[in-house]
Structure formats: structure tokens, C-alpha cells
């Protein structure tokens, strides 16, 4: 067996990958639609249940579930964005409460359909790396997928197809005056971010138990990551996710497992007190 400490830190790296995977969609919603979407975790859960449903029908690979989960979540997300998010977007307190209600409704619905009992998908054996290091299969998947998803997001935002998103993020009035359908771009972006969360849920479903409330923990951490990193920097989101993952593992190793979460939140508080607008806030940006 490899050095346990090295293994623990490597696992922290993978845990950071899972935070980043969820944070990718959250950053898109916060950056473009400019709302705090507390139903993001519910879409993560939806993706996991889609993967479970396919596995129960003999399609065991969660990768196969990703497209279906993404399509279903996109459709739900667009509906939610158009029917609820866009109309009440001007009321800052209504949206978090409303999206939280959506999340709770989804949890209740999932409990009615699949029951409150934990469900599980076979995870498969891990890969053994150099020096006997265990490469957790779904940890590697999370890390690579988050890098790919955030890289793709960075490319989209910097290339020509992402110009409307960038412009809306910067100044909606100017985007509107240029003839862009701001409302439509907003709800399509919302749907796209929901699809990203569901894809993450499907990919990571074999790593643990599938339950109605499984999206709550990743929701909180992804929200924290995006707010602390600043939604403008995809690279900072990725690096902060990885940093928090490793920090959590190091604290669990050196202090106590129960202290790891406390340490994460303490680190976040320190970062926010030093840079309230996020680590990589753009100077002079209009909101």
C-alpha cells in the first residue's frame, strides 16, 4: 500500500474534482443569469437517479446515463427558467426561496417514486497507480470531467459563440439594445447549467449512495466555491475546488474527520473577509 498520507491527499484532489464539477454549472447561472439557484443540487440528484434507473434496466455505465440525464435536466431547467426564474428575477429574496422550494419538491417527489432508502450502483474496482496508489475510478472521472467541463466553459465564454453570454453577463441593457433575446438566452443558460449538474450527478452516482437528499452537500460547496473564487474566473474555480478538497483531506488526516468541514468553511470565511468580491473579481465590473 502507498503512503496513507499521500493516498489521503490524492483522494482530496479527487474530492476537489467533484466540487468543481458541480461548481461549473453554478458559475454559469451566477455569472449569466445572476441568480442563486438553490435547486442546483436537485438536478445533481436527478442525474444520479437517471443513472440508477438505467442501471436497474441493465445499462450499468453511468457514462451512458449522462446524455439522457442532461436532456431531461435541460428540459426541466428551461421550463423552470422560463416559467419561474425569469419572471421573479427582479426580486432578490424570492428566487433563492423559490428555487429552494423546487429542490424540496423534487426531493419529496424522488422519495415518493424511489423511496427514502439509499440505492446503489456498482462502482467497479479502482485503478492501482504507481507505488500502489489507489486511483478511485469515480474520483478520476470527476477530476477529468470537471477539467473538461470548466475548460469547455472557458472556451465557450472566450470564443465567438459565447459572446452573447459574455455581453449579458457584463451588461444586459447593451445586449438587449443590440437585438439579443436576453430572456431566451437566460433561460437556455439556466437549462444548460441544470444539464451540467445532472451530468455530474450521473457520472458520480456509483461513488456513493443514491438518495433524495444527496444533492445538498455538493450544492453548498459548489455555491461556496463559485462565490469565493468569483464567477468570472473558470481557472480560479477549478483551483479553489482542488485546494478545498485537499485541505479537507489534510484536516481530516491531521486533526479529525469531523473537523474537515469546519476547516473548509473557516478557510472560506478567511478568503471572503480578505476578498469579499471573490478571489478573481474583475475591476470596475457593472452588476
Amino acid at each position: 500500500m502507498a503512503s496513507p498520507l499521500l493516498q489521503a491527499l490524492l483522494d482530496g484532489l479527487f474530492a476537489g474534482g467533484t466540487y468543481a464539477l458541480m461548481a461549473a454549472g453554478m458559475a454559469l447561472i451566477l455569472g449569466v443569469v445572476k441568480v442563486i439557484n438553490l435547486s442546483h443540487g436537485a438536478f445533481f440528484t436527478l442525474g444520479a437517479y437517471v443513472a440508477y434507473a438505467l442501471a436497474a434496466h441493465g445499462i450499468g455505465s453511468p457514462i451512458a446515463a449522462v446524455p439522457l440525464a442532461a436532456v431531461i435536466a435541460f428540459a426541466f431547467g428551461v421550463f423552470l427558467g422560463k416559467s419561474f426564474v425569469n419572471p421573479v428575477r427582479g426580486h432578490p429574496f424570492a428566487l433563492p426561496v423559490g428555487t429552494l422550494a423546487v429542490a424540496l419538491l423534487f426531493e419529496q417527489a424522488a422519495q415518493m417514486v424511489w423511496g427514502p432508502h439509499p440505492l446503489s450502483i456498482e462502482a467497479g474496482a479502482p485503478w492501482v497507480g504507481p507505488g500502489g496508489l489507489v486511483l478511485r475510478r469515480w474520483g478520476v472521472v470527476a477530476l477529468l470531467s470537471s477539467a473538461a467541463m470548466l475548460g469547455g466553459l472557458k472556451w465557450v465564454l472566450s470564443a465567438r459563440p459565447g459572446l452573447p453570454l459574455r455581453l449579458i453577463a457584463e451588461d444586459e441593457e447593451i445586449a438587449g439594445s443590440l437585438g439579443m433575446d436576453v430572456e431566451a438566452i437566460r433561460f437556455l443558460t439556466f437549462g444548460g447549467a441544470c444539464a451540467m449538474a445532472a451530468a455530474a450527478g450521473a457520472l458520480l452516482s456509483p461513488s456513493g449512495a443514491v438518495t433524495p437528499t444527496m444533492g445538498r452537500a455538493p450544492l453548498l460547496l459548489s455555491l461556496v466555491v463559485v462565490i469565493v473564487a468569483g464567477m468570472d474566473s473558470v481557472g480560479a474555480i477549478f483551483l479553489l475546488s482542488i485546494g478545498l478538497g485537499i485541505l479537507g483531506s489534510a484536516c481530516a488526516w491531521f486533526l479529525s474527520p469531523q473537523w474537515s468541514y469546519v476547516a473548509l468553511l473557516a478557510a472560506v470565511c478567511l478568503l471572503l473577509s480578505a476578498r469579499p468580491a471573490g478571489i478573481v473579481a474583475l475591476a470596475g465590473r457593472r452588476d
Partner: protein
Amino acid sequence: MLAPLSGPYAAGGTSFVQAATLAVEQANAEGGVFGQRVTIVVGDTQGRVDVAKAEALRLISREKVSALVGAYLSEETVGVMEVAAAQKTVLLVPVAATAEITDLVRREYARYRCVFRVGYSLAQWAEMIAAFLADQKVRRYAFVGAGIRWNLELGETLERIVAPRGATPVYTAFYSPGNPAFDTVAVAAAAAAPDMVVLADPGRNSVSFLKRLREAAPALPVLSIGGALGDARLAASIPLSAPVYVQAAAWRGASPAATAYVERYEQRYGAPPVGYSDTLPYDAVTVLVAAWRKAGSAATADVVPVLERGTFSGAAGAYRFDAAHQAHWGTGPGTLHGTFVRWERGGARIVFPPR
């Protein structure tokens, strides 16, 4: 019935209510009590002490229930005890294992005489686990679980009980139920090279932890106590590269009564019970109904002496209560002894105690 139907322990709470409902249906099929149907009213405790106490008060004062069964967590149950004692209402405790419950009955009998624990106490639980570990020739074990009260107490109690038998915990860790550090705990537990990991987690996290542990140490046996790993629906997907044992109050094949209960449960709900958070509430309601019938009344003053002196049949065996109102669980003759099973691809096999 007081059970967490929402929050992190909703799965266990739902099993609670399902099993209790089954027991009530069984009682009503046998003619009910005093010619009347037994009705179950449920309060959702959400796994929180304040909510559990408020729900207990609501059930007694507004719903006019004759007795309480619950709650789930030790913290909740101690809170509910206060309400039951103040309202002089019988409280049957199915799973909460903290020593405080029976200690209070022993110390302040007049106040808490209406409280009876059907499930095992921590000392009894530790005794049963210690007997199993000895049977499996375990000398070094890791004790890992959710950082909740009964786990912390059970870990300490088990350590005290196994010490004279030459067994020692080589690693002990408790993770936060809200955001557990599974990976690190699994790596550290594997690095300590125990003969077996005792996994004390009643919730969904037991599944996630087992997967992480199997990745870190594929050949390390695990004993799950009080957890979701008794669910047959999970067994097909949990990694069985090394033995996974589950401790239950009763299991199919352990006795005719246990088998009959499992079959009824499976017929009613489409899946077999997990053997803990369903079996003990089932037996709690069964004991309560039997006590009402024997007493000829549901009044607390009539039911308490009957519970103190009588013997009551349940799925796990024959229940009798000691002076602290604790059911006799353990390894000696005449006690309820529980069952240890080992998951295999085709199902579970009883491995202890030997039949």
C-alpha cells in the same frame, strides 16, 4: 409513533413507520384491542430534539394517543422521555440505545416508570458485538461511524467490554453526517491493518463509506451495525470482495416468528426488512398491544405493571423487562440475542449465533 420522516435519517424513520403499521394491521386482523381498532398516528421528528419533543406533546395533547413509540436518535428519545414522564404516558423505545434512558428510569423510577426500552442498550449491544468479534477471532478492530451520540458511546463501551478478551481498537474515527470525510477515514482505517472494521452508521453514508473502504482495502471484512446495509436491495451492488456482516435484531430463518415477520413485511412492502430500524419498532408495537390486552386497559397506571411483570412475544423473541425497564438482550440463556448475517451474492446467510 415518533420517527424522522425527513432529514438524514428519513430512510430509517420510514422503515420505523412501515413496520409499526404492519404490527398495527396484524393487531387489528386479530380483533384489535377491547373490540376497537388500533390506530397509529405519526409525528415527524426530523431527527431533531426540539421537533421530537413538540411532536410528542402534540400526539399526547391533541391526538390523545394512549402511548408513544419512538423516537429514533438517542438525543431525540431523551427529549421525548421528558414529555412522556410529564404527561404520564407510556413510551416504548425501539432503537435509541444510550445508557441515559435506563439510567433515568433506575435513578428516578417514580418519574420515568412509564418508559420501557424494547431495543438493546449500548452495553447489551456491545456485548453481542464482542461475542461476534470473538467468534470471528478478531483481535484488532477499527471502529468507524457517523459522529452521533450513540456511536461515540458504543465505541467506548465496546472497547471496555472487549479489553479483557484481548481485543483492541486500532483505529477509531467518527465523521460528520452532513459532510463526511469518507476517503480519509477509509484510508486511515485500512492503514491501521485491523482484522475487521466495525461500521456504526444508521444512515445512507454507510453505503458510501463501504465503497470507499473497499477501494482502499478490498480484503478487509466489515461488520455493519444498525445501518442501511441490511437492505437486500443494496446487496447486489455493494462490493463483496471481502465479507460484509450485518447485525440485526431478527432475520429470516433465525426463528419461526422472525421468518413469519419477514415474509409479512416483504409481502406488504415488496422488499424484506433491514432487521433493525423496522424489526424493533414492529416488536415495540406488538409488545404494547399485548400489554394493553393483558391489562384490559390502555391507561398508563394499568399498563406499566403488566409491562414490568409480563413476557411478550415478538419477531426477535420473548421480551421481558428488568428493573430499569430494559429488555433482556445479550448472549446468555433466556436473552434476546439478535442475529449476525453475511451478505453473499445470492442473499444473506446467518453466521452468528450458531443455530
